[in-house]
């Protein structure tokens, strides 16, 4: 069995890629995907630790995270559609009306 550090390392790499995606990309769809990536990297860490310590708590938490992620994507896509309707664009850099 692979030591847990490999999973944690993979999880950290995935999280970093996700975070960079959120910060760098201008397309909201991609941003959502990156957010999913980050969530799933967390899920991976949960599962890895649960497996390593022989506990079920981590695995149960992963289900909650998946549920929340699904709900979030639903709300997020609805928002994107609404924004597209009003601005005919979904570029996040154009959504700066709250600029001070």
């Amino acid at each position: 069995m692979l030591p847990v550090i490999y999973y944690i390392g993979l999880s950290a790499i995935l999280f970093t890629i996700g975070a960079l995606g959120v910060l760098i990309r201008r397309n909201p769809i991609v941003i959502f995907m990156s957010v999913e990536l980050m969530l799933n990297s967390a899920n991976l860490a949960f599962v890895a630790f649960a497996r390593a310590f022989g506990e079920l708590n981590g695995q149960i938490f992963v289900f909650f995270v998946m549920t929340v992620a699904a709900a979030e994507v639903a709300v997020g896509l609805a928002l994107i559609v609404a924004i597209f309707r009003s601005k005919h664009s979904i570029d996040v850099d154009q959504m700066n009306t709250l600029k001070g």
Partner: protein
Amino acid sequence: MALIQTAQSLQLFYLVPWVIFFPVIGLLVNIILGGKPGTKPLLGEKVIGTIASLASGLSFVVSVLLALSLSGHPEGATITLLEWIKIGTLQIDWAFRVDTLSVTMMLVVSGVGTLIHIYAIGYMHADVRHNDDPGRYGRFFVFMNLFIAAMMILVTGSSYLVLFVGWEGVGLCSYLLIGFWYEKGKDGIGNAIAAKKAFVTTRIGDLGFLIAIFLMFWAFGSLQFETIFAKAAEVAAAQPGIILAITLFMLLGVTGKSAQLPLYVWLPDAMAGPTPVSALIHAATMVTAGVYLVARSNALYSLVPEAQNIVALVGGITALFAATIAVAQFDIKKVLAYSTISQLGFMVAAVGMGATVAGMFHLVTHAFFKALLFLSAGSVIQGMEQGLHHVEHDVGLKKKLKNEGVFMSEHHFDPQDMRNMGGLRSRMKVTYAVYLVGALALAGIFPLAGFWSKDEILADSLATHPTVYWLLTIAAFFTAFYMGRQILMVFFGKARTEPAAHAQENPPVMTVPLILLALLAVIGGALNLPSLHTFASWLEHTFPTAHAGEFNIVVALISTGLALSAIFFAWMFYSLRYQELQRLPFAKRPDDPLRSWLGPVFAVLENKYKIDELYKLVILDPYVSLAGFLAQIVDGRFWHDWFHDVVIAGGFKLLTRVLAVRFDLGFIDGIANGLARLSQATAAGMRRLQTGFVRNYALAMFLGVVLILGYLIVRVIAL
């Protein structure tokens, strides 16, 4: 006789407060019922006068009872009425000293006072009508009773402070009564000015007396007569200077109140008061307060011969000085006023040189004959006013006079001027008789009262102070001369004016007191006849050192001779020469035979040595210019214009401007505006952060999380 013995055995000393209470009751009744000036009083004039006279008379009765008790128990008593002041060790009661000296004064004040009250019933009846204000009748008697009460406080007090209360009280009454017709006189305020002059001049003396009282408290720790006199010798041995200072400051008070040099100037002007006032206050009683004070303080004066010499000299010089002025006066009351100053000089000289008995004796006899003279003068004046009234209302006579070129008017005619009189002897017989008695008593003709008392002073002064003796003897010569002059000008010869020719005698209410006073002026000398010395042994109980002056036949002969020769001179000038002058036409006729004979000297005397003018030049004018300087320059320009307006008001304005502009607008508003500007600037800086780019926010959150995690990790590793 039995009654007298009963009174002697009973010690009625506790009655002494009533000598004050009776006049006070009298004046209260008259204040309430006597009516205000200008309104009709509730009581008639006779009732008002009777109440006032009764109040004074009852005071006299109490004084007589006290005298009788004193003759049985000559040691006297001190009756305490109430506690007055108590501060620390100082305790001053309102206590009455009943001894032979105070009772003598009480008898004189209330006795002569009562006669003058009775006289005033008649005199003021005419006077208020002559001055067109009958409503003021009651007020006069209120003031008179107030005077009796104040004078009684003065003479009965057992401490210097109580004496001072009376001293000021009589000064107030004097002021009120001199200014009784305050709207009359020269320019309508002459009388008021005379009253003010009397008040202010005596106040200068009172200041001296007050300082003497302070010094006494300082030196003796008490103001009681007995305490001070008991300690006097001891203190004099320790600090002789302090007794000298006390006595000399007291002398200043005496010169004010008793009209001695240099503060005598108020007394002649005080003649502006109604004549009974001149008689009671400015001749018989109040002005003798100074003599009483020196006599009372005999124990102090006898310790410092220097002070005694000064007092005697002041008295002697005043006696001569005033007597010379009296020679050249034309106002019948002014002559008597200067005569009073002169006679007070005799008394002050006597008590000053330690001849207390002689001084007090002269005080008593002088009260009799000077009151008599003033009241008779009042009678003469009123007789003249009636004559004037007669002339004014006799149309035929007036027309006749007008045709002869003699214009008669009240405004031109002075009923007090002796030059307007003459020949009143036949028209006013009673007044003439009593006036003659008074004048002879004053001149010191044997055997009238003035002879005995004056000779006692002269004999005493010859023994101790020869200088003063000569001053007084010459003064006595002038006294006889000016009295002879006055009698001859007023009563003898022919009437020089129509009012004098129509003068009328006054009613008995005025003449009876005159007759009684004349009687006293005749027999008053019997008080202290040589070899009997009744009065001396009476006063010995108060003054252990009092001695009866020995009768000196040489002194008596000299003074009588001088008096008679003075009267002879007066007769030569004012009877023989005056009659010759009357034959000259009016324009060429000199008003006084002495004027042509004495020349400029007479003018100097007539102008009273110009002392009033001198005082005006030396004291009043510099004082007025000093006051003007203080008022206009110091107060007006410096204090008000500069200090108040520039320094205080300007400084305040400057301060408020600094506060308003610099502090309020600059500092306080600066804080408020600065805060606003600060938050504005902060906000302007902060809004840059609000880019509106979601990714920026996300980056910030990310970095924040990294920082927190980094911190936690570092902490874990460090642990």
